[in-house]
């Protein structure tokens, strides 16, 4: 059943309802949507916050691990009193205080082939924000299996990339990256909170666009940016017809993406 906005929600969202082209229909789609967020760090935590305050109906947060003091330079949902405790617990508490109307489900686990189907099957969109390749690859495979759109973003130092994936229509993650960097250190990459937050905000914008039909998502386009130089560029990306993950999905007739 489609949920309508309450009176307090109408007041809460009235400023974004004056965005050019953003209508009540877009807001209702958001309220009736669910997002799976894999990774509640500097990127995914920021995405969760902005989806929550924009009015998404439900968030499922999947992230394994406890908060450390070295997380606090970038993770805006985390508070010092939660050091040593599960990050997802802190994230849910903060989100409930900021946006109590959002249902937040939490799972203190890694995304694996054994549990990914259970997390993705009720999601309308997924956010890829874990700092390792195995979980990013598994989330991509799960999204392709279930036809769920995926917002893929990653950063290193002052560089980041972002794209939106619609299985069967645009390149999937595996079409673009066949192999991981074996030297990648999950807990060792350099990160400035303002950069991971910028990327997280952009991923929230992409998710809102894909969920509501507002604007033009980064389908078959990859945004690259470097915040040390403030250079932004977009490259086109194409599906790999031989992709073992999504190659068997046929593109819609006449699809140009």
């Amino acid at each position, binding site marked *: 059943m489609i949920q309508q906005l309450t009176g307090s929600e109408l007041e809460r969202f009235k400023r974004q309802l004056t965005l050019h082209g953003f209508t009540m229909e877009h807001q209702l789609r958001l309220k009736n949507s669910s997002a799976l967020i894999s990774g509640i760090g500097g*990127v995914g935590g920021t995405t969760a916050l902005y989806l929550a305050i924009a009015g998404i109906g439900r968030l499922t947060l999947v992230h394994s691990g406890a908060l450390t003091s070295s997380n606090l330079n970038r993770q805006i949902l985390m508070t010092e009193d939660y050091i040593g405790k599960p990050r997802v617990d802190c994230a849910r508490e903060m989100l409930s205080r900021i946006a109590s109307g959002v249902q937040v489900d939490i799972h203190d686990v890694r995304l694996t082939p054994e549990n990914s189907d259970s997390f993705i099957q009720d999601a309308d969109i997924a956010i890829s924000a874990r700092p390792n390749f195995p979980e990013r690859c598994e989330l991509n495979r799960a999204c392709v299996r279930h036809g769920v759109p995926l917002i893929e973003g990653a950063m290193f130092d002052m560089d980041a990339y972002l794209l939106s994936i619609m299985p069967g229509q645009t390149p999937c993650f595996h079409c673009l990256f066949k192999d991981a960097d074996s030297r990648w250190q999950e807990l060792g990459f350099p990160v400035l909170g303002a950069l991971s937050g910028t990327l997280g905000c952009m991923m929230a914008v992409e998710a809102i666009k894909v969920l509501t039909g507002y604007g033009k998502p980064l389908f078959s386009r990859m945004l690259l940016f*470097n915040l040390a130089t403030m250079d932004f560029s977009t490259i086109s990306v194409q599906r790999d017809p031989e992709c073992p993950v999504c190659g068997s999905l046929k593109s819609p007739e006449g699809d140009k993406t």
Partner: protein
Amino acid sequence: MSSITITVKFFGPLREKMGENREVTIPESGTIRAAVEGLSINPQAWYLYSVNGEHARADAQLKNGDVLTIIPPISGG
């Protein structure tokens, strides 16, 4: 044999190693793979390539003045 000169831009960890960009000269009709093999980066690693803003495969031929961007997989989240 005549040659062509291209500009190579680096992303992520490669930027730390190689700098912002480099001019590279390769034989005419050379491929992306040939250009990468001339750089001191691991040619066996997987990279995403774009030429003049368009996604390209490693066997794509380059022409004089092309701008090749090399994007390694990154996973910071």
